[in-house]
């Protein structure tokens, strides 16, 4: 266990050295937040209420989504593991007396923890300064939201771990990553809130694992009773179930791959 704590701390420290890149990422998240929020404000000016969302909900959705961009890594970056599989360096990882899944999970959670403090908080604060946002009132709602955020980061890792280990079979995972980093924002509710889709489509999209990274945490934050799962506890249970399924698949794939891995080159 101590080794994983050390890897977690390492991931946290490593990303905290990229200060300029972090500031640039916050800037980009805020710019995209402002653009998306302006479009939705224009829309909600024409239609004050759509499928249970009002203008404040929509703008809050945009900035919570931008704040989740770092921790849940919906649009990347891919895990370094992918590149290590391609170059064969993964052979060293497999020799360590530690589970690769837990190793990379600790590393990525270190990264996620850093981005919460250095990206999510400033991005959301910038949004709150420009627009009136719908903030939770009860302390319990803040606690539920924090839980939803942690689970979103876990699911984000699980997805990227699966993409990375697909490299054991595909060698080059750039295609898989690119495809997922373009599709995930749509299915997650990052591009536009999923509730804007026609209700039958939205109801399906909202229970899929991608929605558990953005749409579900946003609805928990907004305190919507219509959230998949019927309330914050149900929503977090749904997220936890998806995290378990995806991490289980990751563990399975790792076990399969470790048996077949042949290191190329020399």
């Amino acid at each position: 266990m101590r080794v994983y704590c050390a890897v977690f701390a390492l991931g946290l420290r490593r990303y905290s050295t990229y200060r300029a890149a972090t500031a640039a990422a916050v800037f980009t998240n805020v710019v995209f937040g402002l653009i998306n929020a302006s479009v939705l404000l224009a829309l909600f000016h024409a239609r004050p209420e759509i499928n249970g969302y009002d203008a404040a909900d929509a703008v809050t959705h945009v900035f919570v989504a931008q704040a989740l961009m770092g921790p849940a890594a919906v649009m990347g970056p891919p895990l370094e593991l992918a590149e290590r599989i391609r170059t064969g360096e993964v052979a060293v990882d497999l020799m360590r007396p530690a589970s690769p899944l837990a190793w990379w999970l600790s590393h990525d959670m270190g990264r996620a923890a850093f981005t919460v403090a250095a990206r999510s908080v400033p991005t959301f604060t910038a949004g709150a300064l420009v627009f009136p946002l719908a903030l939770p009132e009860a302390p319990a709602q803040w606690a539920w939201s924090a839980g939803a955020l942690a689970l979103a980061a876990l699911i984000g890792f699980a997805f990227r771990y699966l993409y990375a280990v697909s490299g054991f079979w595909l060698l080059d995972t750039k295609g898989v990553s690119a495809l997922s980093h373009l599709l995930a924002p749509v299915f997650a509710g990052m591009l536009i809130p999923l509730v804007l889709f026609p209700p039958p489509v939205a109801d399906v999209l909202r229970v899929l694992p991608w929605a558990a990274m953005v749409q579900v945490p946003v609805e928990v934050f907004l305190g919507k009773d219509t959230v998949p799962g019927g309330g914050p506890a149900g929503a977090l249970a749904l997220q936890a179930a998806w995290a378990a399924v995806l991490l289980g698949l990751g563990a399975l794939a790792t076990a399969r791959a470790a048996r077949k891995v042949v290191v190329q080159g020399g």
Partner: protein
Amino acid sequence: MASLPSALRHGRAPRVPVYLLLVWTWCRASAQYPGSLALLGLAQAFSAAAELTAVLVVFGHAGELAGFTAREAMLVYGLAALAFGTADLLMGSVERIGDHIRAGSLDTLLVRPVSPLLQLAADRFSPHRLGKVVPAAAIAGYALATLDVPWTPGRAAYTPVLLASGVAICCAIWTIGACLQFFITDAREVANSVTYGGQALTEYPLAVYGREIVRAATFTVPLAFVTWQPALYLLDRPDPTGLPDALRFAPPAVAAVLCALAALAWRTGLRRYRSTGS
């Protein structure tokens, strides 16, 4: 080295054949991973479809925004994706200049007898980006064909000029953004907020954002000339924010000025460049 054109072996090479040779080399390189290439192309097409869906969902709820219908918004989206997609295809690799500076590989480009900007533009040329350009052209074409555009010979002749100007403006913005990395190595993400952010902004009729944004996108970062003014021209309607109609004939001039600025930024950056020595 038999496949290199003779000019490349004897000093400074002509630009176009070398560019095509480099582009072709990278196309063959990406064809080495056909699965990835197909997925990357598909991903680009999906992203265009998803963005269009978002535009249509928003306009589906609103009916009309800033006086634009869903079909007209589709034209604006098509123009934006076409201009930015083509610029990404031609100049997208330039944004990796920061990596080249850090790794020292820019030095390698500088000692070759070919323009370094040209080499950078062709570096890792990605044919999969056509996966975005082709659907974008289809979307813009479909919108133009089904909208009631008052076609005249002049309008038909000016439309390709508008499209080319849009691509040139995007290429120039991309290059200027990349040149920032000569001065600040980590500026890539900031440049992205203008390049990708610019695309996100111009995907909707600009008037949706209000007068101030239209003014800013006209007179500071001239993104208004990529989709907004061309769309106003094609639809033959006055500017709802009250700017003069003459502006819709400005895109070629704006493109020329921006390209000159990009060239200046590139030369300044290159002159200031000191190798990392590694």
